[in-house]
């Protein structure tokens, strides 16, 4: 109460102006901090670099979207089904194949799923070089996950020519396609 009694206009101005100046000082300090942060953000290493990185990532994403569009063998798909579908592709025209699946831990921390693909037993087993090479190419081209890891191409059975003879250009094959995944 004594304080209020001793208040006069000058003291009210002093108190008010100092409180106001302190408050404004706090706001100015906060504003300065914000300004310093904005200046830092606008340096070449700030927003310009972030935008450049963002655009690079956007291009990466666009590429992935295109790959995803083309990808025939997605993670949720069955590997053997994929192999058979490639074998049946118009440009391949191999048709039915036999597949044997095996798992092998050839690399620490990774499981190699190996699909051995052969012409069907007892069925058609002679193909042109185009068919076989297109089959091998499409196995890898249609999926980033599949690698052809073993290839054996021999003349059609029963048509084996001797070294000085020219064969009939009909071939059979025996291949491994491998899908490597991290061990769960």
């Amino acid at each position: 109460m004594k304080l209020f009694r001793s208040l006069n206009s000058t003291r009210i101005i002093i108190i008010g102006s100092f409180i106001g100046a302190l408050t404004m000082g706090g706001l100015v300090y906060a504003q300065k901090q914000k300004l310093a942060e904005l200046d830092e953000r606008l340096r070449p290493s700030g927003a310009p670099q972030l935008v450049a990185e963002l655009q690079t990532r956007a291009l990466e994403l666009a590429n992935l979207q295109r790959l995803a569009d083309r990808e025939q063998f997605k993670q949720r798909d069955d590997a053997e089904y994929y192999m058979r579908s490639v074998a049946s592709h118009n440009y391949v025209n191999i048709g039915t194949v036999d597949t044997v699946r095996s798992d092998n831990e050839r690399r620490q921390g990774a499981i190699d799923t190996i699909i051995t693909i052969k012409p069907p037993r007892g069925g058609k087993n002679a193909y042109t070089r185009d068919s076989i090479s297109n089959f091998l190419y499409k196995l890898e081209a249609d999926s980033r996950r599949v690698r052809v890891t073993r290839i054996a191409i021999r003349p059609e059975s029963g048509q084996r020519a001797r070294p000085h003879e020219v064969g009939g250009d009909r071939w059979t094959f025996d291949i491994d396609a491998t899908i490597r995944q991290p061990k769960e």
Partner: protein
Amino acid sequence: MARSCGIRLGQRHASLVLLDGSAKRPKLRAHLEVETPVGGEDPLDALADALKSAVRSSKLKLADAEIRLAIDSGLAAFRPLSLPFADKAKIEEVLKFEIESRLPQWDIEDVICDFHVRRATPVESDLMVVAVRKADLAARIGVATRAGLEPHDAEIEASALFEAARHGALLATDAAQLLVHVGERTTTLVVAEGGRLASIRALQLDLLGAPQDAPVPAEGEPDDLATAAPLPANVAAPERRRNVAERLARELLRTLSAGQREFAIAAVYVCGTHLPELVEFDAQGNATGPHAVIADVPLAPLDALREAAPELALAERLRLVPAFGAALHGLGANGLTPHLRREDLRYAGKFERLEVPLGVLGLFLLTLTTALYIVDYKVVQARELDLGAWIRSNDNYLLGSTTNDTRGRLPLAPDAIKNYSRAIAQGPDGDLERTRFEQLERLRGLIASEIVRLENELGTRTEIEPPQSALEALTAALDVIHGMGEQLGRFAIREVVRAEYRPGTAGAPDSVSIVLNMTFWGDLEATRAYNDLMNELERQPWVTAVARRATNTLEGGGGIYVDGLGIDIDTKKIPPPSRASEGAL
């Protein structure tokens, strides 16, 4: 504990009393007196210097003491005033206006007026107005200030005398008393009736013969309220003292015999300068001398310091009475409430003196900080706009611009990315929870999340190195053979015995091992072609080993054949294929 310092400033004499305790039970902690000789320099200057050196040599600590100044009553004019109200604020408002016509000798603007309430009812007040010229008061305040004792308030000796007598229980409520202070120039007479102030007189009875600057009393004032005429200055000292005593005795007699009082004066209390020509007191306070009894009223010492300073001699105690009374006011005694430091002579404490500079400083700081805030705010806005430009530019790059009719680089962006990018490109309101930079970071996060989602979808998000492709290795080897063209002449790959990936071991990296059966026709050209092929393969940086095999002559001649021709290839060393050599389909 409260401390109070009372100073009585006369013409050539000053006394100082330092008290602590309370107004009811004060203790004398220190006292001093200074006196300057007659003649020479300005008496006030001399008094200031003497007081200053006395205070310094006594090492009094007065920083926390309330300092009160009692000035010579002869400097004041006393006027009774009756007003039809008793409210103090109203009295203050009208005081100068009411008293102006009663002080014809002074310009009212040059005067400080104080008042003491003698009697008051709710509808009427009877006042004793004390008027002092501002110049006189300022000069006395200056003396004290120069001595390092700036007073918080000032009064005249008469009010200090009254307060001292009140403290000494000398003011009986059923009688009247006459209080006398004998000063070196002015003798103050105060009449108290029923414990209240009744009247004040200041008699110009100069004991020293010094030049005088007392106010001229107004004509027509009642005798007991006006100052008495001064003595001539050319009278010798012993004669002067006798004259002063005689005149004072006559004035006392006149006062005692004056009528119109509620109570008769029962006692005369004397203090101040020792004047044996009037009366002398022994240690017990018994009066002797030519005027020990006047009109059957005995003179007695105004011994207000009896309890506060019993160790002092009576004569010394009597000289300190006005300073003691002023100090009592400093301790809160409120028999009277004198207040002469007012208007432009008002006391200003340290803080009050700093008020204006502080106010100006505060306003300056407020203006400065406000200006800084506004400037910074504008700059921040500009920076935000700059960041906004980056965000809009990025949005145009990703999603295209309808304004410029350009296509974005991310036409198939998921809705989350598309909507967020569009929203923040519109303005900061697109995401109020984040700053502009954080909005960009958030957009980057959305794109990164989508990349992770797609990589997981494609099964390519792994740190594990994929196995080397036998197809790639075989294609590279066949490409070398194809590239040699006519150099190899006529040849045939009779069988790809195997092209097989071999996982690396501790000493060897991953590789692909190729085994071919080949035939070369011709005589010498066949062998040369075979050697050229081996040499060409060995030159390839990605061929890690070539297993040369023994050649056999074809049946019937005409060429050679080789079975189990081995080539080891590290596909990681194969340079990326050009567009032209990419897949057949």
